[in-house]
């Protein structure tokens, strides 16, 4: 039985710390893999989200606020949608650029990839919002005195 007042055990904490970079690397991989293989922005976003859920449960504070993440994602996606029109193309037209990146090798990246960044930001933003909204930190550090809280609520209502 874990002591409720101190939060999760150091083992969980350590495990989460170790898993974080690993998961993030996988997320990046999945993100870029998406073009030719299963994956993509949505999966990457969910992976990042999963990491955040884990960290949140282990008692780490959330690293971002949800709304800026969501807003940025929206703006990026909309910009990608509108940008082709600057060149006189139909909106949401695809622009493909081929380039060689370290580690990943030759990557054909297009505006779709930028669009996918927006997707990733929004999906992880959603998870941050859910964690924030549901006060998931309570799962990590339960309120000091549940009974006390209840009487307070009753008094105030």
């Amino acid at each position, binding site marked *: 039985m874990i002591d409720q007042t101190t939060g999760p055990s150091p083992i969980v904490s350590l495990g989460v710390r170790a898993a974080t970079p690993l*998961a993030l690397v996988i997320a990046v991989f999945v993100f870029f893999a998406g073009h030719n293989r*299963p994956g993509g922005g949505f999966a990457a976003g969910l992976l990042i989200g999963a990491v955040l859920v*884990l960290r949140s*449960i282990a008692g780490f504070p959330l690293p971002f606020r949800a709304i800026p993440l969501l807003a940025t994602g929206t703006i990026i996606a909309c910009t990608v949608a509108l940008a082709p029109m600057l060149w006189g193309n139909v909106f949401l037209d695809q622009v493909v650029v081929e380039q060689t990146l370290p580690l990943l090798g030759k990557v054909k990246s297009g505006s779709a990839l930028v669009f996918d960044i927006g997707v990733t930001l929004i999906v992880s933003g959603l998870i941050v919002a859910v964690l924030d909204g549901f006060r998931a930190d309570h799962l*990590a550090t339960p309120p000091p005195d549940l009974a006390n809280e209840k009487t307070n609520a009753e008094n105030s209502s």
Partner: protein
Amino acid sequence: MITSIAIALFVVSSLCAMIRVIRGPGLADRVIALDVALVALMGAIATKAASTGSTTYLPIVAVVAIVGFTATVVMTRFLEQGSSS
């Protein structure tokens, strides 16, 4: 052949675990069973990938591993708190 048997076994174990998910009886049983089912599924996919050399499903294994782990931790946490209050 071997691959097929291995995959079949994984599927069977996965199904067995799923039955436990359905039947319960406790919440903890279901949580553990779901985890087992996921691991079995990952095993099946990995075996398939190893035998065919196709990497298509590999990202799935990685993702499922991380996410499945997360889910299990969350639920454990929930169970813990449910029992304390």
